[in-house]
């Protein structure tokens, strides 16, 4: 028996071929899009003068992570900025801390953002600048901001790229951001358990915590960040590293191996893992900001370390078991600058405001106007009173700030002692390497020396891998 030829086949083949060609064409078109981006691979410049502002209703959006200062900023800005720009509404979008970097940079990658002002950690600036994601504010700052009103290092830390040397600012370098919230670690100690006078040296702090833990069963000697998410464990190690005279890297020669894991670095890691970790609560190996605050509020720690900007809740009687009033809690809790040892360095925290290069011209103009408004002396003082941590020297020294919280004097005293991490485009990978290894050492998954040597080796490989063909990021 013979069968007729199927009529559908050739037609189907043509359809399949057409679909394949369509896909190929789309792919090629998409590839072509990548080439177009090449021309935009440097940060566009913001105008020196603020363009004419719209009178239409406008929402100025920020992106930050979920924590009390984010809410404080939205409330403060809507109350105060509306007085000068009634048509503008401020919206502070928040994401969990662990998603903060990804939430901003995935939108930057799409060359389209739903925020106008990115609140970047100081270390994110390098990545955003080299990718052309934020505006170059150098000319704008020259024309609109009184740079002499700031501690030079604070201005540099939240805006300058390439990174400034610790404690300095390069006046010839470009600025890509302005300070929003200053921050550093405060030592929180139980006055009722260890006395009114805080420990002055790191060694003294450890022995005081040890004695307190022994004398008060159920209360751990120390509480600090140990988690392997965000920059939690990394900041803890970097702090001890700084105090014991270590260095994170040789910035000029881009050298980490042999610098981070030198004798001072090894001593710092040993202090952290062998002397400090045994004084922490069991299972605290994944603690970050909230967990440390919870331990303090529930009276479970003699001495703790946390970011000043996140410490406000400790004085809230609703969140604390230490007293039914703020005064009662303050009778038990003391706040002090970090103890010194071989150096007096403290970690630089806080963030700056950076204008998205993909925001609409009207919103970019509004963002610049907001930044100019925000950096005024009287507004900075109001921000301090509203719970913010300002960066202008006059605001830091103002009674509005110093009287707003018991930890604000700690910040004022810490400003000249601050040191930052690396601000390079590879930051996210460097901090992940350090976080995971320090966390492993703190939780017994690695020996302290091995962990530090691994950090140095892997971070060096990241810095050296820029010319590598394939396999980047592993």
């Amino acid at each position, binding site marked *: 028996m013979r069968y007729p030829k199927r009529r559908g086949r050739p037609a189907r083949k043509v359809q399949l071929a057409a679909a394949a060609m369509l896909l190929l064409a789309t792919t090629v078109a998409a590839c072509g899009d990548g*080439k177009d981006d090449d021309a935009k691979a440097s940060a566009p410049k913001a105008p020196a003068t603020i363009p004419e502002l719209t009178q239409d209703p406008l929402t100025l959006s920020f992106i930050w992570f979920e924590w009390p200062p984010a809410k404080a900023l939205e409330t403060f800005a809507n109350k105060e900025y509306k007085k000068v720009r009634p048509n503008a509404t401020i919206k502070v979008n928040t994401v969990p801390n662990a998603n903060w970097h*990804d939430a901003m*940079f995935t939108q930057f990658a799409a060359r389209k953002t739903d925020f106008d002002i990115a609140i970047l950690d100081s270390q994110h600036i390098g990545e955003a600048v080299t990718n052309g994601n934020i505006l170059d504010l150098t000319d704008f700052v020259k024309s609109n901001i009184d740079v002499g009103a700031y501690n030079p290092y604070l201005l540099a830390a939240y805006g300058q790229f390439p990174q400034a040397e610790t404690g300095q600012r390069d006046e010839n370098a470009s600025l890509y951001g302005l300070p929003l919230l200053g921050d550093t670690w405060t030592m929180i100690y139980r006055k009722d358990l260890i006395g009114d006078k805080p420990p002055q040296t790191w060694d003294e702090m450890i022995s005081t915590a040890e004695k307190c833990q022994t004398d008060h069963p159920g209360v751990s000697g120390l509480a600090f960040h140990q*988690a392997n998410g965000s920059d939690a464990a990394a900041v803890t190690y970097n702090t001890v590293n700084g105090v014991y005279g270590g260095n994170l890297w040789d910035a000029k020669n881009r050298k980490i191996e042999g610098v981070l894991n030198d004798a001072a670095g090894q001593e710092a890691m040993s202090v952290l893992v062998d002397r400090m970790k045994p004084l922490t609560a*069991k299972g*605290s190996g*994944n603690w970050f900001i909230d967990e440390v605050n919870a331990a303090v509020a529930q009276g479970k720690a003699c001495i703790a370390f946390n970011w000043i900007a996140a410490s406000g809740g400790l004085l809230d009687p609703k969140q604390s078991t230490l007293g039914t009033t703020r005064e009662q809690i303050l009778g038990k809790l003391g706040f002090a600058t970090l103890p010194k040892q071989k150096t007096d360095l403290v970690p630089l925290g806080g963030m700056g405001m950076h204008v998205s290069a993909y925001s609409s011209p009207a919103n970019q103009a509004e963002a610049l106007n907001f930044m100019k408004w925000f950096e005024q002396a009287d507004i900075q003082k109001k921000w301090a009173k509203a719970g913010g941590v300002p960066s202008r020297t006059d605001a830091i020294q103002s009674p509005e700030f110093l009287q707003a919280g018991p930890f604000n004097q700690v910040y004022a005293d810490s400003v000249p002692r601050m040191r930052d991490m690396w601000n390079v485009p590879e930051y996210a990978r460097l901090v992940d390497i350090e976080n995971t290894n320090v966390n492993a050492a703190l939780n017994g998954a*690695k020996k302290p020396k091995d962990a530090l040597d691994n950090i140095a080796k892997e971070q060096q490989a990241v810095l050296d891998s820029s010319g590598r063909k394939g396999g980047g990021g*592993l």
Partner: protein
Amino acid sequence: MSDPVSLTTDRPGRVATPKPSARGRSHRTNDRRLAVAFIAPALLLLLAMSVFPLLWALYLSFTDYSATRGGTANFVWFGNYTAILTSAQVHLRALTTLVYVIGAVGLQTVLGFSIAYLISRRTHGRGLLTTLFLVPMMLSPVVVGLFWRFMLDAQFGVVNSMLGSLGLEPVEWLTRQRTALISLIVVDTWQWTPFIMLIALAGLTAVPKYLYEAASIDRASEWFRFRTITLPLVWPLLLIAVLFRAIEAFRLFDLVYILTNGGPGVSTETLSFHVYKVAFLGFNTGTASAYGILMVLVVIILTQLYLRYLNKLKED
């Protein structure tokens, strides 16, 4: 005798019908256009959402492209693939993933089948029991991760509180190398055992009763009936459930992200979690694409081997 060709349709074996008239052909063409019109939106969606991204990822996997840096995607050919396959970091994550998949899916299979077997023997309340057992499966993995994180907290968690009331020492469930992976397996088992149970229950209820009746007449023991009737008949269906679970477990991300964040250190980092870091921490899009393609290939190859075994089982 007329020409057989003119009397056949394009499907051999069907009863021959006369050649359709021009009007009939027109109807058929219209039907065909209508069919194309109906499936076109779904097809376009499939092309746009699945096929194109896959091809795009395949293209990127041969380049050094970075989504944030932009710029030209330079071809590195198999550079990304070689780097991934020879990376000690990837080998470590592959081992973690393997231990996790075997541990979680193995435990779920044993528990799921046991529960299904026990439920199938009940005559009253079977529906209610099945529904109750299915509740964990209906929850979002993020929600499951969050509440297990609280339950397993070493300081304030209910699990350690219960251990304490029994006079046992608290356990650091999520911050120690050994217990962290075990915790992940336990939480995944809690959520996904009902899936295996459901499929196994469907298989168990489909076993013909007359086989058991015949076995009873022959005075076969309970164990003999289970070994020679129940298990062989349910086995192919159970294997399909295991296949689905193994694929799911292989690409585990959410529970790791919420419960341990890959820690302590990187000891609970699975392949999917590592891909996420490669893709979003350094935005090495080319490497991440190659990583993803390799993971898809592993799943396809293992699935093919598995299906062949399943077919062989059927033929036997």
